[in-house]
C-alpha cells in the first residue's frame, strides 16, 4: 500500500506544479479580470486557438482525474448517480458533473469559472458529445462549437478530410470563438504559438525515445502522464511549455548520461528487470499504489499508448506554423483514440520492437469505450506478431469501487512471474 511519505519530485515536476497553480489562480479570477473561459477536451484539443484569442481553457477530464488522485471522485460520482446518472456512464463524466454540483471547486481548492463556451473538437469519443450536452443543461445559454473529427476508418488521413475540417474551423468554429472572445484571430500570433508547439513536441519525442535505451532513464507511463501534461493541456504553444520541455529533456539527458534509472515517488529505481509496453489509461484513484506494484518489481514502462491521447508525435506529426489550420486538423484526426484498430496494433508492435519490450500489458478501463473496445483483439494480435507474454488487468479511471488492489496485485504478480520464468527458460534454451 502507498506510503504517506512525500513523493520525490524532479525539478521539471516542480515547474509544472507552478504552471498549474498559476493557471488555476488565473481561472479563479477570470470573471473579475474579464477573461473568457472555454471548456474543451484533451484529445484533439485546439489549445493554441483558445490561447491566441486570450481565452482560458478548462479540461473536464483533467479535473476528473485530479479529483480521482485527490480521493474526491468517489463522492462526486455518487452525487451524479443520485441525480440519475447510471452506474454504467463514464466515470469522468460523473466525477465532473458531481464536482459541478458541489460548487465547481477545482483540484487546487479554488473555484472554477463557469464556461463561456463549450468547444468540442474531438468526436471520436461519443461520450464527449453527451458530456457537453449535459454541461449545456447545467450552464444554459453557453456558446457551443462542435468540430467534427472524422475517424481514421481507412487508416489514413485524406486531403478531403483535412479540407472538411479546415472548412469547419474557418466557417463555424473560429467565428464562434471570435464572437465569445470579442476579438479577431491574430494568425501571426497563432503561427508563433504553433512554432513553439512544434519545438516542444521535438523535445517531448526525444524524452519519449530516451526509453529506447536499456536501461531506460524514464518511465513512459506513470511518469509519462506527468511529462505529457503541459503539451496536452493549457500550455501547448506557450513559452512556459517550451521551457518545461527543455528542462525535462535536460534532466532526462542528464540521467541517461549518468546511467540513472527512472525516478518514482520513493526515489530512484535500482534495477530494471522488465520492460513493458502498456495500453490503456492508468487508474487514478489508486495511482501511487498501482505504480508501486510496478516499480517494486523492477518493471519499467518503456512506451505507452495513453501518453499519445494528446498526439502521436513520435510517429512524426508536428504542428506547422505555415499551415496552422491544416495542421490543427491533422492533429485532431491523429490522436491515438482516433486511430483504427490496425493502426493501434501497428503502433504497439512498433513500440515493442523499437523499445525492446519484454511484454505487453493492457489496463482495461471499465469506463472508457474509446480505449477498451478491441483490446482483446489487440492483445491476441500482439501475442502473435511479437511473441511476447501479454497481460490483462481491469480497473477504472476515477471510480474507486472498481479498483481491487488484491485482484490487480495478484494478476500482476502472476504476470511478472511469467516474464521471469520465460527469461530463465529461454536463456536455458539458448545455451543448449
Amino acid at each position, binding site marked *: 500500500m502507498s506510503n504517506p511519505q512525500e513523493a520525490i519530485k524532479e525539478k521539471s515536476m516542480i515547474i509544472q506544479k507552478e504552471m498549474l497553480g498559476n493557471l488555476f489562480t488565473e481561472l479563479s479570477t477570470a470573471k473579475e479580470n474579464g477573461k473568457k473561459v472555454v471548456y474543451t477536451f484533451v484529445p484533439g484539443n485546439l489549445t493554441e486557438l483558445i490561447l491566441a484569442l486570450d481565452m482560458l481553457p478548462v479540461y473536464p477530464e483533467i479535473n476528473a482525474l485530479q479529483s480521482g488522485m485527490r480521493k474526491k471522485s468517489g463522492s462526486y460520482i455518487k452525487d451524479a448517480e443520485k441525480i440519475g446518472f447510471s452506474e454504467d456512464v463514464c466515470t469522468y463524466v460523473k466525477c465532473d458533473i458531481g464536482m459541478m454540483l458541489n460548487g465547481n471547486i477545482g483540484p487546487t481548492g479554488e473555484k472554477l469559472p463557469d464556461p463561456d463556451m463549450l468547444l468540442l473538437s474531438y468526436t471520436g469519443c461519443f461520450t464527449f458529445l453527451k458530456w457537453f450536452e449535459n454541461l449545456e443543461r447545467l450552464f444554459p445559454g453557453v456558446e457551443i462549437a462542435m468540430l467534427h473529427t472524422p475517424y481514421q476508418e481507412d487508416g489514413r488521413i485524406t486531403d478531403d478530410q483535412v479540407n472538411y475540417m479546415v472548412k469547419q474551423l474557418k466557417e463555424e468554429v473560429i467565428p464562434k470563438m471570435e464572437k465569445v472572445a470579442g476579438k479577431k484571430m491574430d494568425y501571426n500570433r497563432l503561427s508563433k504559438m504553433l512554432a513553439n508547439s512544434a519545438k516542444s513536441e521535438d523535445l517531448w519525442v526525444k524524452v519519449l525515445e530516451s526509453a529506447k535505451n536499456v536501461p531506460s532513464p524514464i518511465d513512459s507511463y506513470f511518469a509519462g502522464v506527468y511529462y505529457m501534461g503541459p503539451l496536452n493541456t493549457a500550455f501547448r504553444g506557450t513559452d512556459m511549455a517550451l521551457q518545461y520541455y527543455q528542462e525535462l529533456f535536460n534532466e532526462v539527458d542528464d540521467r541517461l548520461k549518468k546511467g540513472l534509472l527512472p525516478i518514482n515517488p520513493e526515489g530512484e529505481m535500482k*534495477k530494471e*528487470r522488465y520492460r513493458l509496453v502498456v495500453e490503456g489509461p492508468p487508474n487514478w484513484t489508486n495511482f501511487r499504489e498501482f505504480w508501486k506494484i510496478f516499480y*517494486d*518489481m*523492477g518493471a519499467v514502462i518503456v512506451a505507452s499508448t495513453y501518453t499519445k491521447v494528446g498526439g502521436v508525435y513520435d510517429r512524426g506529426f508536428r504542428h506547422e506554423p505555415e499551415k496552422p489550420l491544416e495542421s490543427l486538423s491533422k492533429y485532431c484526426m491523429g490522436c491515438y483514440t482516433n486511430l483504427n484498430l490496425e493502426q493501434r496494433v501497428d503502433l504497439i508492435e512498433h513500440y515493442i520492437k523499437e523499445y525492446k519490450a519484454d511484454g505487453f500489458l493492457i489496463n482495461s478501463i471499465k469506463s472508457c469505450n474509446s480505449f477498451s473496445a478491441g483490446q*482483446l483483439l489487440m*492483445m*491476441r494480435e500482439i*501475442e502473435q506478431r511479437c511473441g511476447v*507474454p*501479454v*497481460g*490483462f488487468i*481491469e480497473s477504472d479511471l476515477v471510480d474507486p469501487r*472498481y479498483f*481491487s488492489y488484491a*485482484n490487480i496485485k*495478484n*494478476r500482476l*504478480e*502472476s504476470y*511478472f*512471474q*511469467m516474464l*521471469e*520464468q*520465460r527469461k*530463465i*527458460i529461454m536463456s536455458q*534454451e539458448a545455451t543448449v
Partner: protein
Amino acid sequence: MSKYYLGVDLGSTTSKAVIINEQDEIIGRGITNTRANYAVAADIARDEAIYNARFSVLKKKLEAEMKAKPEYHKYITDLESVFQYEQFKVRLDKLGEELLKTCYTFFKEEKRREEILNHLRNIRKAFKPKIKHEYLFKNLGAKNQFFRDIVSERYNEEVNKLDLSLFEPLMTVWDKSISPAENERVQFDFEELIHKAMDELKDKYKNLPDTAAEDTSVNFDAEINLLKGKFDHVSESLREHIDEIAAIEFNIENMTGTGYGRALLPFPQECIRSEILCHAFGAHAVFPETRTVLDIGGQDTKAIQVDKYGLVTSFQMNDRCAAGCGRYLGYIADEMSISLNELGPMAMQAEKEVTICSTCTVFAGAELRELTNLGEKRADILGGLHKAIIMRAMSLIARSGGVFNEFTFTGGVARNQAVIKYLTQLVKENYGDNIRINIHTDSIFMGALGGAMFARRNILTNLPDEKKSKEITIE
C-alpha cells in the same frame, strides 16, 4: 537418502499440499478447508501430505505382498482410515474443550449454563460414536477430509432434534467455538497415533460378527472375511514395516507456496509463486501436450495458455465477480439442502437444462427457488446451473484466446461429473471434435503439484524481496 519436494496451494476454499519424489511422482497429498488462519491451514495440509506420504511409502514397499495377500491390502487401507479417525478425535476433543469454554464465558447465569452444558454433553455423546463408526466401517476419511464439515453436519443434526428455543444458544456456542478449535495447529505424533490406530483395528476385527448383518453388502463382507481370524498375524507381520515408515525422516529439499493466500504463507519470498504458473506447470507436466488450461477453483476461474515448455503466454481470470466458481456450487448446494458432492450426480440426471442466469450467485439462488416453485425438476435446474458455469468459463477461455489442443481442466470443480459433461459438450461444439480434453483424478492438486515441481527444479522466482525471508523448518 531420498529427497522430497513440497508444494502448498493455499486456495480461497481449500488448502492443498503435495509431496513429490525425485521422479516427479506424487507420493503424498493433503487437503483441508482454508480457514481464517492461513498458516494453520497450510500446516495441516502439509502434515496430511506427509502422513499420506508415509502410507504411500509403506504401500510401495509392500506392493508385491499386498498383491499376493489381499488381507494386507485391506489391513493397510483400514489402518489409514482409522489413523485419520485418530487425528480427527484429537481435534474433536479440542472442540469439546472450546465448547465448554465458550459456554462458561457466554452464559453467566448458572442454571442456564448448566442446561446448555447438559445439551452439549448429550450432543457429543450422540455423535461421537456415530462418527467413529463411519470412519471405521464406512471409510468416512476418504469421503470427506474437512473437520468442520464432518462435525457441523452431525452437530446440526443433533441440534435440530432439540426444542427450537435451543437452536440459537447452541448455534452461538458452536459459532464461537469452531474457529478456535479449527485454527489451532495440533501436533500429532505419527508413531503414537498409528499404534493407537492398530489397537483400534484389533478391537474392530475382534468384534467382527460371525454372521453378516443384514445391512452390510456382500462386497464388504468378503473384504472383512479376509481378516477374520488372521488379523493378529497380519498385524504382527506388518508392525515392523509400519514402525519403519513411522521413523522415516521426510527430508523436504525445497518447497513452493502458491494460491490466493500465498503471500501469507510463512515461506521465504523466493519460494512463493503465482498459482497461474503452478496450475499451468502442473497440468503441462502431467499432460505434456497441454496448450490451454482451464482451472475452476473456489473463487477464481482461470483460462491459461501455455507453450510447449509449459510457460504461460497469457491468462484471463474472472474479475469483480466469482459467480460460476466452486463457491457458487457450494451456495447452490446449501440452497437445495444437499451436500456439494451430491450436486454433480443429481445434475447428471437432468433431462433438459433450465436456463439460469450465471452472473450472480445470490440471484441464481433466488432464481432456483422461483423455478422450483414453477415446478421445474431439481435435476433439470441443476443441469442448467452446471451448464451456466461452463458458459461463463467458455467466455473467459475465448477472452484468453480460445482452446488449443490439448485442453486440460484442473481445480476442485473438475471433480464434478456434470461440469465435465457440459465442458466437454461446449468445447467440442465450439472448438471441434479433435480437441483432446484431459482431466486428472488429482485435478484439485494440480496447483500444489506444479508448485512442488517448481521446487524440485529449483527455478527460483528471483523477484525482489518484499518481506524478509524467514527460516522455516519442516518436521
